[in-house]
C-alpha cells in the first residue's frame, strides 16, 4: 500500500495563515452589527405570525372542537352558567394554531405577541374570562423588519 503523501507546507505558510486570521478579525471589526437591542427594538414578525391567543366569547358556540384538536392538551373547557367556554394554559401551548384553524365561527384569534413574562406558573393558566381578555399588547416603540442583503448579510429596516 502506498504511503499517504504528507503535504509539505512552506515555512512561511503558517505566518501567512496567522496574518490572514488577524486580518479577517480586523475586517469584521468594521462590519455593521447584526443583532437587535431586543427589549428596545422589536422585530416585526409580519401578519401570519403565530403568537398568543384571544377568545371572543360572544362568537363561541361551545362546540369543544378547539379542546379536541389541541395536540398538547393546552385548551380545556370550563363550565360557566349555561355554556362551556375554553380556557388555555400557556405552560403547554405550542402555538400550533390548530384551534384557530378548526374553529367554525372564528372565535379564536392569534396575535403577534409571544414575549410576556409571568410571576408564577399558576398565572399561565387562564380561565375563559382571562382567555377572552387576550394577550396584553403594548405599543412597542421601535419595530424593524429583517431583510436579507447580498452584501451585508442581515439588514434591519424601520417599519
Amino acid at each position, binding site marked *: 500500500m502506498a504511503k499517504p503523501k504528507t503535504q509539505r507546507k512552506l515555512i512561511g505558510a*503558517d505566518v501567512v495563515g496567522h496574518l490572514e*486570521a*488577524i486580518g*479577517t*478579525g480586523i475586517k*469584521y*471589526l468594521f*462590519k*455593521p*452589527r*447584526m*443583532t437587535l*437591542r431586543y427589549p428596545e427594538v422589536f422585530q416585526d414578525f409580519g401578519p401570519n405570525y403565530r403568537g398568543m391567543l384571544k377568545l371572543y366569547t360572544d362568537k363561541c358556540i361551545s362546540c369543544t372542537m378547539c379542546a379536541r384538536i389541541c395536540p398538547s392538551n393546552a385548551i380545556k373547557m370550563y363550565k360557566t352558567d349555561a355554556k362551556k367556554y375554553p380556557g388555555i394554559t400557556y405552560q403547554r401551548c405550542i402555538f400550533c394554531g390548530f384551534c384557530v384553524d378548526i374553529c367554525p365561527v372564528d372565535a379564536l384569534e392569534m396575535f403577534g405577541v409571544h414575549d410576556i413574562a409571568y410571576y408564577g406558573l399558576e398565572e399561565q393558566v387562564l380561565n375563559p374570562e382571562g382567555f377572552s381578555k387576550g394577550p396584553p399588547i403594548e405599543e412597542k416603540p421601535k419595530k424593524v423588519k429583517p431583510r436579507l442583503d447580498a452584501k451585508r448579510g442581515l439588514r434591519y429596516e424601520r417599519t
Partner: protein
Amino acid sequence: MVFVPLIFPGLLTVTIVIVVLIWFERKLTAKVQLRYGPLYVLKPLGGALQMVADLIKFTFAELIVPKGSDKKAFILAPILLFTLSLLPVIAIPVSSKYAAFFSDLSLLIVLSLLTLTPIFVLLLGWASDNKFSFIGSLREGFMMMAYEIPMFISILAMAVTYDSLDLKHIVETQSSSLWGLILNPLAAIAFFGAMLMTTARYPFDITEAESEIVIGPYTEYSSVIFGLCLGASYVKLYVLSLFFAEVFLGGWNPFGGLESLHPILPGVAVLAKGVIIMGLCVFMRSVYPRYRIDQALRLGWHKLLVLSIVSVVLSLGIVGLGVL
C-alpha cells in the same frame, strides 16, 4: 517610594487599566462577532462600568472554603500569586529618574519574579482538592516549560543586542538607535507568543479552558480570592506589556525630553505603548479558537524555541557587524 508600587505604575493604575481592558476585550470580541457586548451599566458609554459592577459583586460574594482543601495554601496561594504578578512593576523604570529602585539587573528581576507565579498556580490547584483544579494546574505546569524557555532566550537575544541587563540602559540605548522591534523582530515575535502563553490569553487559555475543565485551577474559588486569581493573569499581562514596550518599543522614547517638566510624564508614553500591546493581546480572543495542549506545546518547543535561538544568532550578528 510607596507611590510607585501603589499608584503609578502600581496597584491603582493596574486596577483602572484592567477594569477598562476587560470591558474593551468584551466589547471588541462582540464587535468582531457582530453583536453588542456589555451595554446596560452606564449606557451612554456602552456599558463601560460593567467590570466595576462585577468587581462589587465579587467583593460581596460569600467566601467558601471547601472541606477537603488545604486551607492555608488555599487562601494564601491566590494572594501570593497576585502579589508576585504585580511585584515586577517596581523594577520597571518608567522614566530615567522614576522607579522604585534602579538595578543593574532589572531585566532579570522582572522575569525571575514572573517565573515564580506558575508555582502558586500549581499550589492552588493542588490545595483545592478538585479534579478540575488539578488538571488545570497540571496543564499550567506543562505550558510553563514550553513558554518560559523561549521567553528567556528571546530576552537573552535583546540583552546581547543592547549589551546590558538594565532596563534603563536598554531604553536609553534605543533613543540613539533603532527600536528593538526593528533590530530583532524574531525575538519580538517569540516573546509576544510566549507572552500570550504566560498570561493565558487566547489561543492559549488551555489552563482555564472554560468549556473543558470549568475554569481550571480556580474552580473552587469564590468571592475576592477568585477576583485575585482572575486578576493575576491580567496583571501579568500588564507587567509584560510594559516590559515589551521598554525592550522592543523604545520605552519612553521619543518623549524622554518631557522629563524636565515632571518625571512621570515619559511614563505615560510607556503606559500608552503597553496599553496598545495589551489591546493587541486581547484582540486575539476574537480571532482564534483554543489550541489543544499538544498543539500549544508543539508551538512552544518546535517553533518559539527555534525562533528564539535564531534570534540570539541574529543578535550576535548585529553585535558582530557593529550595526548598533
